[in-house]
Each structure stands twice: as structure tokens, then as C-alpha cells.
């Protein structure tokens, strides 16, 4: 009987531990280790904006850690009982609410404010990963042409997340985060900057895998890589 209890307990442990797999750890870390005079970039800019919102800073939000930023950090630290060093260390940044969500230890694409560039890049990644660079820019351009067209929703998110519009959205590939150095990000930037290899096309399809038959009734404008483009 004792053995039986042991076996049952063992089995239960296995069952429960299986259900626990897949739980991810989430915790906050500061975006940079510390920010000091001479630093610049988006992190500094975010900090300046926070300081400005709370009235510690009245200079320009320009992403450059200058003297006026230094003094306002100092004032902030004094007010909050932090070590008044003028260097925005991890503690200071966290107290400003500038922590970033980090999942399972690996850096994650900024979730707070998914910019158009990231959204477009993720769509291109899902739809045209294996395509030549021009093909990726072209897919980005088609999405942007849709935003401008009267026949589609009026926002980038509206177009990309339109139900049934893109397979990469339907099957969830759109949520895959991508590295900022990936070529799809470059392609997204070029498309946003106005490069349009398709000259106003609203549709594209891969003739080898296209499932919808209506697509064959579309007039083909041009072919780039494996995709055909049309209006």
C-alpha cells in the first residue's frame, strides 16, 4: 500500500510538472545600466520626457544628456531620497517607471509602443521572409498603398490586422519579434520612406501557393521574386 501511495504521488508530480512547463518568467529591468553626462539616444530621450512631465526639466527633449539634464536628474534624486549623483543609475530609472519588460531574460522588442516600423517589419517578415530585398520592400509598399486606398481600412494596424487579409496574421507569425538589424526592418524603413517598387499595387500573391481562385482574375502588374503584384 505504501508503495502504491508513492507511485500515485510520483505520477501526480509528473502530471503537475508537465502543466507547469511553458510558464514564463517576467520581470522588470532598466533599459540601460546607467545614463550619464555625454550619453545620448532614445533612453535619454525617454528619461527627459519623464522629467519634463513632472516639472524637473524644461530643456529640449533631444536625447542628449547635457548639463541641464544633469541638474534635473540631481533634483529628482534629492526629491526622491535617492543618492544625488546626477547619474541616472538603474534604481533612478526604475523609480521613474522606465523599466522595460523582459521575458525569460532575453531582450524583447519594445512592447510599450510598437511603432509603425516594427509592425510593418513584422508583417514583411511573416509574408516575405525568403524574398529578395526588393520583394520585401514591395510587400511593405503594398501594405502602405492599402492604407492610402479608399478600399481598405485607414490605418496601418487596420490594414495589417484586417481579418483574412494576410496569412502571416491569421497564423500568428505577425507576433514573432524581430531583431532591429534584420533586413526586413530595413525594407520596412525604405517602404515607409516612400520607395514603392510596385507603383501603387494593392495585392500580391504567390502563384505557386495561392489558394483563392479570384486572385487569377487580377491583372498582373509585375513579378518580383516569387510574388506577383496587381491592383
Amino acid at each position, binding site marked *: 500500500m505504501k508503495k502504491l501511495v508513492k507511485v500515485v504521488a510520483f505520477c501526480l508530480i509528473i502530471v503537475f510538472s508537465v502543466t507547469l512547463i511553458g510558464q514564463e518568467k517576467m520581470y522588470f529591468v532598466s533599459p540601460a545600466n546607467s545614463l550619464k553626462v555625454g550619453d545620448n539616444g532614445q533612453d535619454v530621450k525617454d528619461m527627459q520626457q519623464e522629467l519634463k512631465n513632472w516639472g524637473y526639466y524644461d530643456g529640449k527633449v533631444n536625447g542628449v544628456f547635457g548639463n541641464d539634464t544633469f541638474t534635473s536628474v540631481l533634483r529628482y534624486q534629492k526629491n526622491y531620497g535617492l543618492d544625488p549623483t546626477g547619474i541616472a543609475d538603474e534604481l533612478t530609472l526604475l523609480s521613474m517607471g522606465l523599466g522595460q519588460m523582459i521575458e525569460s531574460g532575453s531582450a524583447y522588442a519594445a512592447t510599450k509602443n510598437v511603432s509603425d516600423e516594427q509592425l510593418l517589419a513584422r508583417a514583411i517578415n511573416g509574408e516575405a521572409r525568403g524574398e529578395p530585398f526588393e520583394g520585401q520592400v514591395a510587400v511593405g509598399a503594398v501594405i502602405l498603398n492599402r492604407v492610402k486606398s479608399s478600399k481598405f481600412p485607414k490605418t496601418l494596424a487596420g490594414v495589417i490586422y484586417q481579418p*483574412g487579409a494576410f496569412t502571416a496574421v491569421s497564423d500568428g507569425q505577425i507576433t514573432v519579434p524581430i531583431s532591429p538589424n534584420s533586413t526586413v526592418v530595413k525594407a520596412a524603413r525604405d517602404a515607409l520612406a516612400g520607395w514603392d517598387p510596385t507603383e501603387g499595387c494593392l495585392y500580391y500573391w504567390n502563384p505557386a501557393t495561392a489558394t483563392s481562385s479570384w486572385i487569377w482574375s487580377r491583372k498582373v502588374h509585375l513579378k518580383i521574386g516569387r510574388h506577383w503584384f496587381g491592383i
Partner: protein
Amino acid sequence: MENYEYRNVYDQNDVRKGGRGFWSITVAIIAILALVGVSSWGYYQYKQANALRIQTNNNYNRAFVDLADYVDNLEVLLAKSLVTSTPKSTSAMLEEVWRQSNLAQANMGQLPVSPPLLEKTSNYLTQVGDMAYALNTKTLNGSPLTNKEYDSIKKLHGYALSLQKSLHGIENQINAGKMNWGKTTTRAARVQSVAKANDPQTSQIDNIDKNFQEYPSLIYDGPYSDHMLKTKPLGLKDKKVTVNEAQEIARKFIGSDKIRDIKKLDKNDVGSIKTFRFKVTYKNSTDQQGAEIDITQQGGQIYWMLRNRDFGKDTLNMEEAKKTALSFLEKKGFTSMKDTYYQKTDGTAVICYAYTQDNVIVYPDLVKVKVALDDGEIVGIESKGYLYNHRVRSIPKAKLTMEEARKRINNKLNITNQRMAIIPTDFKTEKYCYEFTGKVDGHDFLIYINALTGKEEDVLMLIATENGTLTM
């Protein structure tokens, strides 16, 4: 042999005789536990999937019923705007038409209907709103609608009525619990045009779009007006070039000494600017790091070029990059260009150049140049704006002086710079303006005062980042 095997098995059983009962119980328990585990897991999954399906279906129903409601409102408002007696009250009505049609369009975009299916309906909703907005600006200034404009509204009202009818047909199905959006999502994409008749739900949605089969083209002062689709490029030269001449132009454009190979691609024969397209590979570089270049069939001008390569460490600053880009443009026949805004991203700078004529900056004639900051190579150019709009303009004489225009500006603005500019509207017309740059509360603004009417035409906010200036 058989005998031996039998003995062997028997022996083993003999040895394990003592543990036999225990092990079979264990196996049975594991099996039962696994079965219970798997089936409860399966049931849980089923429940969850079901809940999700109901939830999404509810969302779709919500979007649809909202759409129908907004179209109802639209119909009434269009009818009302036909009988309003003063321009001011017409304006109020039209403003509401604009708002309701926007909401209708936004909700339609959430329906699980693949894009081409409701194309015409979407186009209608956009144009109703857009046109109402354009007419609203007109009536706001006190001028009444013309007979032609009344006729347009009347027609649009007729379409609203038939759209309303088809939407209510589907709404009845929803109310009767018969609408299953899940089906339409997967089927709509495949079934369209092949077996429409077999799927009543898809064909019902298809019927909505059929209302707009005979929809006329609408021309008015708005970005979605139909005349926008038929714009003629004004900046193309007369001479037609052959594909071989175009290839030579492309070769010269990039520089023969840099090219390893240049290949013809499919030409682009559709659209208002037709082009020849080439793929260029560079010496000392891989095939992937090549460029594509388009030369216009008429005029043999550069339409766009883009090279994708890895960029090294920056050696050029923005001033040097601008100089490189400008001298490049001058060499390629774009004269009197002035840089306006730029954006810097990993190793490159995209600089916008506008044409200048008689000290007036002409924003519609736009060329974008992409400069590599490691060695100053031009890795991209885009001249669509220039090719569509460029011509020598006869700039009218301003009716306001700079001082008079300045007085019309909100006095909170601290003006730092002023010049003359021609700005594009959203609907391909141009306006001759005074451009004032100024500051309010640490924010930079551009304000445009029409040099002929004194009207404030546009306000742009400048956002300076370390990578360049953006306008909003």
C-alpha cells in the same frame, strides 16, 4: 527452437512472479491517470476553444451591427443635408456624415471578409465621408452647394438606401442566430467567384458589394476623389526610349566602372508611369547586395533605384552627405534643388530635395536621395514626386505682403524663419504660400499662409530627433 523460446519466457515470468501484481496495478494506475489527465486536458481545451469562438463571433456581430447602425445614420443624414436651408446647417449635417461614414468604414474593416469581397462598399463609405468633408469646408465658409453637388449627394443617398437594405438582411440572420462568421472567414477567401451559390453566407456578403456595380466615379476636392487615380505625370520628357537605351541610361546612372553586370527584368507596363527595370550587380560585391533600378519608358528618366548592402562605420557627417547628394543630383540633371528634411538610420541618410524656382521652394517636386554614410555612395533615389509634378510654373504675384501674412499668425508663435513655398494639397493641387517657422513652448512649427487669400492652409509640427527632423 520453439521449445527453447517458450522456456525462456516462462523462466522470466517465474522470476518476476512476486512483483507481478504490483506492476500491473502501477501500470493500470498510470494508464488511468494519463487517461483522466488527457481527457480533462482535452475537455478544458474544448471549452476554451468554444469560449474563444463565441467571443470572436460576438466581436464580429458587434462590428457588423455597428456598421449597420452607422449606415442607418448616414442615410438619414444624407437625406437631411438635401433639405437644409442655410450653408451653415448643411455644413453641420455634412460634418456628421463624415464622422458616421468613418466609423462605418472602421467597423467594416474588422469583419472577417477577405479584402476584395467588400472593396466597392469600402470605397463608397470612404468617398461619402471624404466628399462630405470637402463640401463641409466649402459650406463652412458660407457658400451654398451647387446643383451638381446636390445631385451627387442625392445619388450617394440612393446608394446608402440600398446598402442599408442588404445590411439589414444579414442583421436579421444574426438576430436569428444563423450567422456563423467562422465559416465566412475561411470560405470567403476560397469560394469567391467559383462556387458562390453554394455558400449562402458568402454570397450574401458578396451581394452587399453588388449594390455598387454601377457606382459612378466621383470628382471633388478630396484625397479619395476618383481624379486622383488618373493623374498624368507632368515631369516626363517627350522622347520615348527603347529598352537598350534605358539600360545604357541605367548603366551611366550608377557608373559603368562600378557595375559587374546589368540584367533586364520584367518591365512595368501598367500605371501612369511605365518603366524598364534592371537588376544591377556590383564589382567586389555579392549578388544579394545589388540594386534594382527603374528608368521611365517615356523620357528615359530615373524613376527609382535602391541598393541593399551592408554599411560600415559612418565617416560622413550630415553636411558632407548633403553635399554629396546635391552634387550627384546636379550631375544627373536635377538642377536648383534644395534639401528640406532628412532622416538618418543605421548607416544611411535619406535626404529630401525640393525644386526651387524664383526663390520659392516647390515641395511637390520632390526627390529623395539615400546616401551611404560610410563612403558617400548613393544607394537609393526616388523621384516619383518630381516626375509627376515638375514643370516650370508661372508663379502668380502674391496679394499679401510678408508682413500682412505675418500678422495673421497666432501671436504666441515666435517666428524664426520665413520664406515662400508652393505646397501640395491631399488632392494633387498646389497652393502658393508664405512659410513661417516658429516656436511655441519649445515645440517647432511650420505655418503656411496662402499668399493669395491669406487663409491659413496648413500647420505642421516639427519633431527634431538625433536622426533627423520629422514633420507631423
